């Protein structure tokens, strides 16, 4: 058990895929992690520690968790995506919060 002062603060990003194609949770994870890895590199990826919390393939939106300090870099990494599954598309960050419940409401 980690004491609260040592615990790393997290941020939750509500994102949405804007593309003509349909996308599953596995594919979305690959797209997200690939985008972050190509922009931040392995070292940056480890510092940002992104994790896909959930994804709804119907609305093509989901929630990504990352480190509080690296949230701007994650936003930039997602902004640089211009192709999804080989087709033209982008990932929009809809909202960011420190509490996951706020994104779900």
């Amino acid at each position, binding site marked *: 058990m980690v004491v609260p002062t040592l615990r790393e603060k997290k941020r939750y990003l509500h994102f949405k895929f804007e593309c003509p194609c349909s996308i599953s949770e596995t594919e979305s994870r690959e797209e997200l992690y690939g985008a972050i890895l190509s922009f931040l590199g392995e070292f940056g990826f480890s510092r940002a520690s992104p994790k896909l919390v959930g994804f709804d393939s119907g609305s093509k939106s989901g929630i990504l968790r990352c480190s509080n300090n690296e949230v701007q*870099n994650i936003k*930039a990494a997602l902004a*640089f995506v211009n192709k999804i599954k080989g087709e033209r598309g982008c990932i*929009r*960050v809809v909202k960011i919060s420190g509490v996951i419940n706020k994104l779900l409401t």
Partner: protein
Amino acid sequence: MPDYYDLGVRFWEDGLEKYANSLGFKGVCSFSKEGNGVEIKAHNLNDFRFSAHGKIILFSSENAELLKVASKREASMLLFERFLPDVGLVRVAAENKKPFEIPVSILLERTGANRAFMMSKIGFFLKICNKYGADFILTSGAKNKLSMKSPAELAAIGEALGLSHDQAVKSISMIPEYVLER
């Protein structure tokens, strides 16, 4: 909360302003036939003969000397496509209060090492701009709706290029507003 503007859209279609508003922008400037901006790609001094009354004039060139001349004339914004750290050009632009356009699409079109080199170039160019007090405007440079970025995304990219959060926000709110008013 400031008003955000995207002064570098390269296309026009119905509902563009509505879409930009949904992203969080108060206004856009489209450099297309139907839009409210004119982009002049200069290769020599003859390209300075133009008339664009009431429109925002973007002067783009790969030649720093031509951009120096443009900054003393009626250009609203400058685009130095090579992003070389030309101190003379940056000084002249700062004296004449002509902002440089930084289109994010230049980075989006590239991948891998090419994107990294261009980010490094633009980052150093912005550093020089800050040192000599020249203004700059972060724009999407979008050629379609999907390449348009929200203000938060543009600010995040600005921070990735080495700007502080305040500088990034200023470059998409205060400086574009000043250009539109002028």
